[in-house]
């Protein structure tokens, strides 16, 4: 390891690896945006990375490194060693654009990574700092890519036509001249496939589930958190235990019972069964929160002659509004995303929930952009709620999402 502790060695090593990351990312980015053939090259990237790493350690200035990277990206291809290679049909402008992206990506980041990394001897500190900055940068690129690419493809596919997709599955460039025609899949979903109704059904089912869940779990959680009674320990353990029973195990007998009682294929049946899957979660989350509330406030209320119920209503609940919001959001998310029970219990296309409706689109006769449009329609509301109320949502996730 000690041999690496020289700026002129660390610099090129980080330069090479980072250049490989950047040229791959730029290629993928350009390919996904235009559908053309953009390729990272191994030896070209290594050569550029080596030179850029040395230059960065030597000069440490954006104004020098970024133009240098740009020059490398456009000159090296002439000797057959460019960091990026292009297919035959790629126009010069696109080649220029990718060279520009490449130079900013390498130059800007390398200067950041290699600050405090002088040419000569490095301390272990300096070496590790540089290395960690490089790892962090690569990690951020990697995670952002794996998280966002599927969602990008989901949205873009829903805006394409079947023909264009078969011609070049990579080409996600939008044909803006089609105007509203871009949204054709969505119009068809809402007009011909009843997705408007499914959305309303999903909202109704999810909100009802939240309300019923809270009605049952708030008193229950309060009792477990505040009172001492026989069987308390066993009860709070069995909540966790029930929490661990897999849905498919329950779904089988529920299917049998619902089939014989006629509750199958009804919204009532769904509304009856969803809260039961969420009540244990809510109980578990809420009792944790209630335990954390100071008892003194409640005792003060009791001393002043309020009854227990009034204390809960006037003191405990207002204090736990944030927790209630988190629990509600979490339960809403579970109900909105629920697929298995809806899939097994609903057959009638008139009363589908959104997830069940999307499952219906998965057929060889229905074009793929419709399926993806359905996926977008089911994803957008929950993601919007999540973004808007992220604070409550993440708290709900951390409190209850041992289940998933």
């Amino acid at each position, binding site marked *: 390891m000690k041999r690496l502790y020289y700026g002129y060695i660390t610099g090129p090593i980080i330069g090479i690896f980072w250049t490989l990351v950047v040229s791959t990312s730029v290629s993928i980015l350009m390919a996904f945006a235009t559908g053309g053939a953009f390729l990272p090259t191994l030896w070209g990237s290594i050569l550029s990375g080596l030179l850029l790493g040395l230059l960065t350690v030597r000069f440490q200035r954006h104004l020098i490194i970024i133009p240098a990277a740009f020059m490398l990206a456009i000159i090296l291809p002439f000797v057959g060693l460019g960091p990026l290679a292009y297919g035959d049909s790629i126009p010069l402008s696109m080649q220029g654009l990718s060279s520009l992206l490449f130079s900013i990506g390498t130059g800007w980041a390398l200067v950041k990574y290699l600050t405090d990394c002088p040419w000569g001897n490095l301390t272990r500190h300096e070496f590790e700092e540089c290395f960690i900055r490089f790892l962090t940068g690569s990690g951020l690129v990697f995670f952002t890519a794996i998280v966002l690419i599927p969602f990008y493809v989901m949205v873009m596919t829903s805006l394409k036509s079947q023909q264009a997709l078969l011609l070049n599955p990579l080409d996600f460039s939008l044909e803006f001249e089609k105007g509203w025609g871009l949204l054709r899949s969505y119009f068809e979903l809402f007009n011909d496939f009843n997705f408007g109704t499914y959305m309303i059904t999903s909202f109704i089912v999810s909100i009802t589930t939240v309300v019923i869940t809270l009605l049952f779990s708030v008193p229950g959680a309060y009792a*477990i958190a505040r009172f*001492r009674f026989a069987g308390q320990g066993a009860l709070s353990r069995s909540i966790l235990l029930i929490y*661990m029973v897999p*849905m498919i195990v*329950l779904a*089988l*007998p529920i299917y049998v019972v619902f089939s014989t009682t006629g509750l199958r294929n009804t919204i009532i049946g769904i509304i009856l069964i969803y809260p039961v899957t969420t009540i244990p979660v809510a109980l578990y989350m809420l009792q944790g929160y209630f335990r954390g509330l100071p008892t003194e406030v409640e005792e003060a209320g009791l001393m002043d002659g309020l009854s227990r119920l009034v204390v809960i209503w006037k003191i405990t609940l207002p204090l736990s509004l944030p927790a209630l919001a988190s629990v509600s959001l979490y339960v809403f998310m579970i109900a909105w995303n629920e697929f298995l029970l809806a899939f097994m219990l609903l057959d009638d296309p008139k009363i589908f929930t959104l997830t069940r409706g999307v499952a219906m689109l998965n057929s060889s006769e229905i074009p793929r952009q419709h399926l993806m449009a359905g996926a977008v329609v089911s994803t957008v509301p929950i993601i919007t709620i999540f973004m808007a109320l992220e604070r409550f949502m993440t708290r709900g996730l951390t409190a209850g*999402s*041992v289940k998933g």
Partner: protein
Amino acid sequence: MEPPKGRGKLAQRDARFAWFMLLPTVIIVSLVVILPLFAIVWISVKPIDLGDLRPTTLVIRENVRTGGEVYEVEYRVRNSSQEAPIADAGFTDIIPSEIELLELPENCSLSQGSNLDCDFGDIEGGFRERFRIPATITGSPDVAEDLAEESQPRVRGDADSVLTNTEFTFDNFMKLFDQKEFITVLWTTLFYTFFGTVGALVFGLFAALLLNTSFRGQGILRGFFLFPYVAPVIAVAFTWINLLDPFSGSINTLIVQMGLTEEAINFFGQRPLALIMVTLFEVWRYFPLSFLFILARMQAIDFDMYEAADMDGASPFQKFWYLSIPQLLGILSILFLLRFIWTFNKFDDIFLLTGGNAGTRTLTVNVYEQAFGISNIGAGAAVAVIIMLFLLLFSLFFFRFISQEEGL
């Protein structure tokens, strides 16, 4: 004075009140969780098919046939089950006044001129009979026909339902253990569960490390990182299928274009790649959870410790290895246990991605496959019972561990 012993009045009243508040929840949860669990054990020792869910009855069809001058009222009767017998089977039907039955079969009688009653006694499974009663019709034949067919015959008979009788069998379990496939299913489940859990933890740890420093856009990135978990599983699963499609998937086009492979790869259609892919999907979808937990724990670590380490000249990697990791061990092990159980329970993901094909059938998918794929509810329940046994084992371990670890 002696200190009070036992439970005072207040304590007793509180305890009563607690049960009063808990009762609705306890009742409804046991109704829909405990009862089904008993049901599943019950069904697992029953020789029962999906078709047996409908009770065994007599099925009857009525038909008025024209044959020139003489008409015939035809009844076709059969037992809905091929095996189960029906005791005291028979039916009654109202014959409209426009139709006059000429000669009745032996087992039938006509009362009040219009109530036809036929009795078959005890019939065997697979029973099937057709008999015709000659008749004359006054007025328009079409009207009479409609009238006759409008009045539905009412059937009777006592059939034993497989669900409720006392016939038990261990066939479901025996058949399950006999299959070579079952061992494969077990190994698949273990592979998926173990690597899915560990992968999600490792990814979550890395993601948390990345976002544990503050920089511009950190909040937005944190939001993005949670997307895979927040989006509906059906949406992301279909997107993955679409993305990795061997014929028209973007990823395949991309890797062929980059020259990584000659031919497109069928990611979800071949062993053992399909299993690896569903495990990767699991990692992708659930790393946000571990990420969230680990990040929360990291931000709670006392900063003084790191400052002290800095004073002593510890390098960044040393600080991570000797300070952060020991601090995170608690949450990591709890997460591992919980996620292990939950990954073991996972059904939707694999069901949507591969339907359990190409060597991706886990225990939970097997429940569905047995019960609905090959319509053998009993066998499905048997698999479910095995899952429950595993979970009981896990949770014993879990409770022992969690009482030491406190937290959560």
